């Protein structure tokens, strides 16, 4: 158990700053896309920052994670370099994936970030397999799979939970239930309200977190991670949250009732946490403002780094199909 009330101020400020970094990274990315700097898809996680930051705060350096099409937040919360992320979004050579992946496939192996994923549910079996390897190695490391409520209707989710529970794999399954699978409200895509009940079918424990409360997410994630690390098997964590924007940048989200949006905007995870830090934890507003200023400087530099990075040469398209292309024969 982690006592979040006893967290030192610098740790609390760090959680606030990391959420703000994600928020501003994605707001700026949306602007940069509109301005023509980013050619591909963007699926912003704005509104869901507390889940990414809360879960990643419960992890150790050796742990690994798989993410989703909405993965910028998970990657930044893990400590990724926003400059290399922007460079990837800009489709430049210094991008994390050398301009071969874009938003949907971003990766940082040094951080154990095994990738965003363009297939809904696609990261779940991969995290499960990673957990199998970590268990085989026996070093107490943990794998985390992030996914949304929509992914829990995929076979990949059910097959993976069954396997992980059967084999007691050190895996934490984190469902970011943002109430929508793409454009479809949860009550129209699954006959349950709590995704967590699906854990019962596979005999693994589940916990529901307020996904807009970073400390609440951290508490629950830390418990699940501790179970996995101790060899007690997987946990399903459901974090109830909401994305403030559409499914992708350009989707206006017209399928969502305005009062629902207003209700969730009032529960903004960053604003509410900032207010709590000042009111309950004795942190000065000036400290929050300083964090915000640092985030802006960081992102300004990140965008400049991306802009200065060279475009790939067209022939680079032929590289990295295979690690060993057998003297080019495998490409013919």
């Amino acid at each position, binding site marked *: 158990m982690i006592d979040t009330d006893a967290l030192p101020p610098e740790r609390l400020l760090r959680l606030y700053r990391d959420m703000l970094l994600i928020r501003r990274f994605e707001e700026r990315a949306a602007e940069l896309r509109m301005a023509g700097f980013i050619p591909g898809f963007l699926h912003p996680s704005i509104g869901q920052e507390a889940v990414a930051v809360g879960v990643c705060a419960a992890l150790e350096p050796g742990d690994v994670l798989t993410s989703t099409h909405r993965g910028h937040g998970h990657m930044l919360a893990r400590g990724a370099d926003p400059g290399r992320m922007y460079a990837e979004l800009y489709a430049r050579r210094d991008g994390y994936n050398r301009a071969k992946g874009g938003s949907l496939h971003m990766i940082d192996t040094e951080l154990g970030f095994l990738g965003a994923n363009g297939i809904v549910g696609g990261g779940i079996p991969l995290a499960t397999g990673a957990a199998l390897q970590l268990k085989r190695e026996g070093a107490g490391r943990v794998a985390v799979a992030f996914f949304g409520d929509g992914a829990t209707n995929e076979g990949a989710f059910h097959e993976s939970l069954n396997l992980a529970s059967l084999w007691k794999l050190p895996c934490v399954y984190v469902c970011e239930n943002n109430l929508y699978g793409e454009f479809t409200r949860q009550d129209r895509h699954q006959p349950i309200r709590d995704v967590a009940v699906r854990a019962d079918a596979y005999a693994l424990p589940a916990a529901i977190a307020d996904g807009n409360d970073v400390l609440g997410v951290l508490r629950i994630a830390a418990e699940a991670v501790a179970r996995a690390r101790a060899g007690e098997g997987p946990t399903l964590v459901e974090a109830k949250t909401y994305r403030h924007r559409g499914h992708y940048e350009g989707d206006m989200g017209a399928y969502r009732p305005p009062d629902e949006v207003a209700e969730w905007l009032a529960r903004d995870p960053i604003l509410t946490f900032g207010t709590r830090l000042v009111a309950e934890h004795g942190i000065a507003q000036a400290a929050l403002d300083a964090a915000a200023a640092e985030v802006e400087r960081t992102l300004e530099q990140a965008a400049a780094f991306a802009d200065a990075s060279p475009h790939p040469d067209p022939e680079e398209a032929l*590289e990295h199909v295979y690690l060993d292309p057998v003297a080019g024969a495998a490409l013919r």
Partner: protein
Amino acid sequence: MRTISYAQAIREALAEEMERDPDVFLLGEDIGESGGVFGVTKGLYARFGAERVLDTPISEEAIVGAGVGASLLGGRAVVEIMFSDFATLAMDMIVNQAAKIHYMTGGRLSAPVTIRLVTGTAGATAAQHSQSLEAWFAHVPGLKCLAPATPADAKALLKAAIRDPDPVCFFEHKLLYNRKGDVPDEVGPLPLGVARVAREGTDVTVVSYLKTLHDALAAAEELAAEGVSVEVIDARSLVPFDRETLRASLEKTGRLLVAHEAPLRGGFGAEIAAIAAGELFDLLRAPVARVCGTNTPMPYAPELEGFVVPDAARIADGVRSLVAAGVA
């Protein structure tokens, strides 16, 4: 030199690779204590234990996903797909994940997983347990595809697959499992992309692989009595494919017939025919012929199956037509 079955050769390759490298482990349905439905992994569970020979639930996507996910962190999983038809349930993990991880991450990560796909008809196994789907996988950039016809090649190529840094689809034909052949006492990994001239000849080149290769050899034997000299090439590595051996053979024969069990339309034979027509046209003295499965699902009745699957007689007929066609 020993004479062992194709299944035994695969089993030995698995065992020797597991001895060599503690990161190698096996995943699949009923492969553990039961030794697999075709007995390929018999004895490996007793020898290597439940930690390295993992019986899985019937969950193809999770099985392949587990193998791929483990491979991202250094595990060398060998996944058995009990019938290659069931790979349809794991296509996301094979096609969207394993095949593309190296590319879409700009080379920062790769998935060196081996997927053993049990292929072809075993006799009356019908439409959902008999397919030959190698062309699907050969079509996907990022995958390598191997299709051995003999015990010696099965052993050497499986070792190569397991050691390869990329994902490999390894096709095994059910009707080959009990077929025996000579295997050297010591077998190392075979380089990929090297075909084998299974029989030398001068009039016609027949390229095949897996079980149909043996039908091609039988046809060549039959035709030799008629004075037709057939060169038979065992492609055995589809991706990468050995163009040089094909060229050298066509320089002698100028006539090409491709034979496989998979349906004709869009089969791997179409790729071989296109390589010949597009890159080796000057060597051809007749149109490329293909003797392949019919464009139908696999039927159940033996008479129907016999109609669908090419055999030595049909390959021999194809060669006879080819000899008569084109220019001298």
